[in-house]
């Protein structure tokens, strides 16, 4: 509070002068801080990007933004703008909503830009009525007013502003209209904060203070306001921030648990306040929050009648599209076709055509880069080892990864369209019942679909799952879906070993989904995951045509981070793999080796390989590739390219790969690498989201075990059909059948009928 007083002092000291910030007593500039708040999916991030020039991730489903993001105003670098996760009210429901409330209440912000979706006025203004009560200057930005106009509705913004008591500005965050006016207005309001502080309770006697603030909430009835004022008088005796006392008083009337916890009221005051609440509850035969919420919506209904002239209703485009996409019979087939098309087209068809050109042309050995570079290096008499490093190491390794750029481009294009158009929420809607049968929520599909781009944001998107047990389960299973970094590995094997068969990529993606669903069934049997089903209640956003700019930005962001990764982590890993596979002890002395089998890497790989023997890929190269995959999954392709390039230059990497793997071995290798613990970046994300070492290790352990199990069962049972088993292999095959039977038993049997049900899992 002291810093407020200092600012107050300075505001008055420099009265009359235009300022965009406060000057504190020690001469430091206190830059203005503006927060963007609004409902989920109302366009906050679009506005944030437009105001700050940032390129934050945008999508058309509720809950895209899960963390607050800061940026500087483009037109005035002194001003900080914060983008907050969307909220429907200031009584938060999921963890990311708590972030928003805490920021708005606890941070020293100077003004709020409240973005209001004008196509959804009632529900948006419901939040506005609460934001205004915080006591920080606020400007309402009516977004999507162009859409409203097209529908023929008219909003009287002047009247809306008068009735709410705050400025109202019309904007289109997407088209960038009205932004200057919004910024000017909010800065002007922010500067008024100093004036607000003039009413510091320390400076005013109670009766005068009440006079200043009578009828503070336009949104409540006189009767409720009277109670709020009475609560505020009690609060005034406590050392809390004056600006928020009105807000807290209303929240207490709503019996908001977070507010009771934060204020930690003395017993006598708490008792008096509770008595006030009970009086209201008795009279209205409803809970405190019910009474307040109804009062707010009643106010808004009346307000809407006053300020909106509605055009006659027409069937909206969204409704027409939904008649097909969420149709009783067609919805599920359409969903399957869409998913199939996305992965089939990007990995197998169009992707392959472009990819073959890049891999066999640009990075091919006939006329491509490797030949050009190696001819060039020979011409300038480069040392052998350096030439080997560049051609066999860097060009082969990084090239093998970059070669898959076209396929990624196509996948990212489809993802951008899927995320931008509004279909994501529909997928959750149509799949919820199926997912629920497996102990998951339809909402879990959103993290999974994002995970096909990259596991890190996929894991973070699990925050929109409200209940702890379900969220942990979503974090543990999201990376089973192949991310785009695994795509080079899939495409490499599909091309080299399976002759680009259509089913390889598609089967790997559907296996990902199947493993997620089966994990749901399995984990739900364990005590820590047993919980009441989290409620499913969410809005369906209107379909929007994804803007070319946003699609381009989304593809660019993902592609550039992929290229950056190839140029840094993968480059380093490639050099490491080249070095350790090119040097070793041969003929009794250390140096560059003729035969890679004598290299240091082979020595390491020859030890690790026994771990993978049961899975069928017991050669040192695959074992090493699997380990380097932990750094980044693209490394699997890069490492294999170097190691097989080294071995057999004439038929190229693909030929060498095809010669070394039987199809079943290759598929087993693929399965293990698709399902096992993700890359370090995603492992880090799991650690952050789990917020507990125990849960982190449980997740990594579960993923690795699952990968091992599936790979083992597929290889060993598949071997039966290939034939030629003997000795140890027979033992492993028998073991595989037993493991599979056990797995099916655990999944199919009701949890309390399991033979070992007496085991107490809670002790874990």
């Amino acid at each position, binding site marked *: 509070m002291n810093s407020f007083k200092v600012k107050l002092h300075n505001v008055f000291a420099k009265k009359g002068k235009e300022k965009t910030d406060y000057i504190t007593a020690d001469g430091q500039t206190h830059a203005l801080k503006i927060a963007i708040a609004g409902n989920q999916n109302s366009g906050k991030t679009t506005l944030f990007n437009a105001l700050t020039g940032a390129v934050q991730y945008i999508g058309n489903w509720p809950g895209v933004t899960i963390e607050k993001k800061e940026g500087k105003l483009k037109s005035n670098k002194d001003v900080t703008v914060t983008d907050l996760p969307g909220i*429907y*009210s200031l*009584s938060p*429901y999921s963890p990311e909503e708590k972030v928003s409330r805490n920021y708005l209440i606890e941070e020293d912000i100077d003004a709020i830009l409240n973005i209001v979706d004008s*196509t*959804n*006025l*009632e*529900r948006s203004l*419901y939040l506005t009525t609460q934001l205004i009560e915080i006591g920080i200057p606020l400007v309402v930005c009516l977004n999507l007013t162009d859409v409203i106009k097209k529908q023929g509705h008219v909003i009287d913004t002047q009247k809306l502003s008068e009735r709410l008591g705050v400025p109202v500005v019309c904007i289109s965050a997407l088209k960038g209209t009205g932004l200057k006016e919004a910024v000017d207005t909010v800065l002007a309001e922010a500067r008024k904060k100093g004036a607000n502080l003039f009413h510091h309770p320390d400076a005013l006697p109670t009766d005068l203070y009440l006079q200043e603030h009578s009828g503070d909430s336009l949104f409540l009835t006189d009767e409720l306001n009277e109670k709020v004022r009475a609560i505020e008088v009690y609060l005034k005796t406590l050392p809390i921030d004056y600006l928020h006392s009105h807000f807290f008083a209303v929240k207490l009337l709503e019996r908001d648990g977070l507010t009771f916890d934060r204020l930690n009221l003395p017993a006598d005051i708490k008792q008096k306040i509770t008595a006030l609440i009970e009086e209201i509850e008795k009279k209205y035969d*409803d*809970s405190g*929050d*019910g009474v307040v*919420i*109804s009062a707010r*919506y*009643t106010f808004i209904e009346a307000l809407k009648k006053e300020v909106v002239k509605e055009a006659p209703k027409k069937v909206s485009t*969204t*409704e027409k599209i*939904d008649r097909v996409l*969420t*149709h*009783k*019979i067609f*919805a*599920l087939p359409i969903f399957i076709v869409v998913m199939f098309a996305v992965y089939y087209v990007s990995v197998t068809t169009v992707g392959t055509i472009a990819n073959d050109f890049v891999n066999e042309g640009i990075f091919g050995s006939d006329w491509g880069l490797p030949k050009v570079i190696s001819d060039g290096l020979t011409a300038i008499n480069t040392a052998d080892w350096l030439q080997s490093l560049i051609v066999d190491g860097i060009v082969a390794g990084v090239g093998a990864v970059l070669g898959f750029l076209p396929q990624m481009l196509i996948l990212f294009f489809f993802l951008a369209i899927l995320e931008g158009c509004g279909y994501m*929420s529909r997928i959750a*809607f*149509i799949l*919820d*019942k*199926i997912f*629920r049968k497996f102990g998951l929520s*339809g909402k879990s599909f959103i993290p999974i679909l994002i995970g096909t781009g990259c596991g890190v944001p996929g894991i973070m998107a699990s925050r929109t799952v*409200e209940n702890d047990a379900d969220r942990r389960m979503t974090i543990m299973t999201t990376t089973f879906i192949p991310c785009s970094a695994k795509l080079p590995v899939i495409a490499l094997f599909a091309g080299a070993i399976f002759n680009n068969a259509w089913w390889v990529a598609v089967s790997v993606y559907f296996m990902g989904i199947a493993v997620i669903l089966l994990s749901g069934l399995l984990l739900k049997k364990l005590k820590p995951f047993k919980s009441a*089903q989290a*409620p*499913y*209640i*969410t*809005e*369906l956003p209107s379909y929007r045509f994804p803007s070319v700019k946003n699609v381009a930005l989304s593809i660019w962001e993902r592609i550039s981070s992929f290229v950056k990764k190839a140029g840094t982590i993968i480059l380093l890993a490639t050099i490491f793999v080249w070095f350790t596979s090119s040097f070793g002890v041969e003929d009794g002395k250390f140096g560059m080796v003729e035969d890679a089998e004598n290299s240091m890497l082979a020595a390491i790989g020859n030890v690790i390989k026994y771990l993978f023997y049961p899975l069928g890929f017991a050669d040192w190269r695959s074992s090493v590739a699997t380990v380097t995959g932990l750094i980044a999954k693209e490394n699997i392709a890069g490492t294999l390219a170097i190691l097989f390039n080294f071995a057999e230059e004439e038929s190229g990497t693909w030929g060498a790969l095809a010669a070394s793997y039987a199809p079943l071995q290759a598929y087993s290798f693929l399965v293990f690498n698709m399902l096992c613990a993700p890359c370090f970046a995603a492992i880090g994300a799991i650690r952050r989201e789990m917020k507990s070492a125990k849960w982190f290790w449980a997740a990594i352990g579960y993923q690795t075990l699952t990968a091992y199990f599936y790979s083992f069962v597929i290889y060993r049972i598949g071997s039966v059909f290939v034939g030629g088993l003997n000795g140890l292999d027979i033992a492993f095959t028998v073991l595989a059948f037993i493991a599979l039977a056990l797995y099916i038993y655990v999944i199919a049997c009701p949890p309390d009928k399991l033979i070992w049900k007496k085991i107490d899992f809670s002790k874990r």
Partner: protein
Amino acid sequence: MWYDGKQMRLDELKVGQSATVTKVNGEGALRRRVMDLGVTKGVVVTVRKTAPLGDPMELILRGYSLTVRKDDATIVEVEL
């Protein structure tokens, strides 16, 4: 009308039916969320459709589209 409307639960409404909310039961976060999203006493709710497998249901209220699982809709009492 010479008789009071028929009382039922929100999840019992059929596709295409509209009803007025009379009470939101239940407690805790779910009840709060339902009300925050605009399902309050007196609001008119229309069932637009159900998902292909019969659940969740899509509701139209206050000019927007809300999806809710039937299990969670049981806490809302309505009058036809």
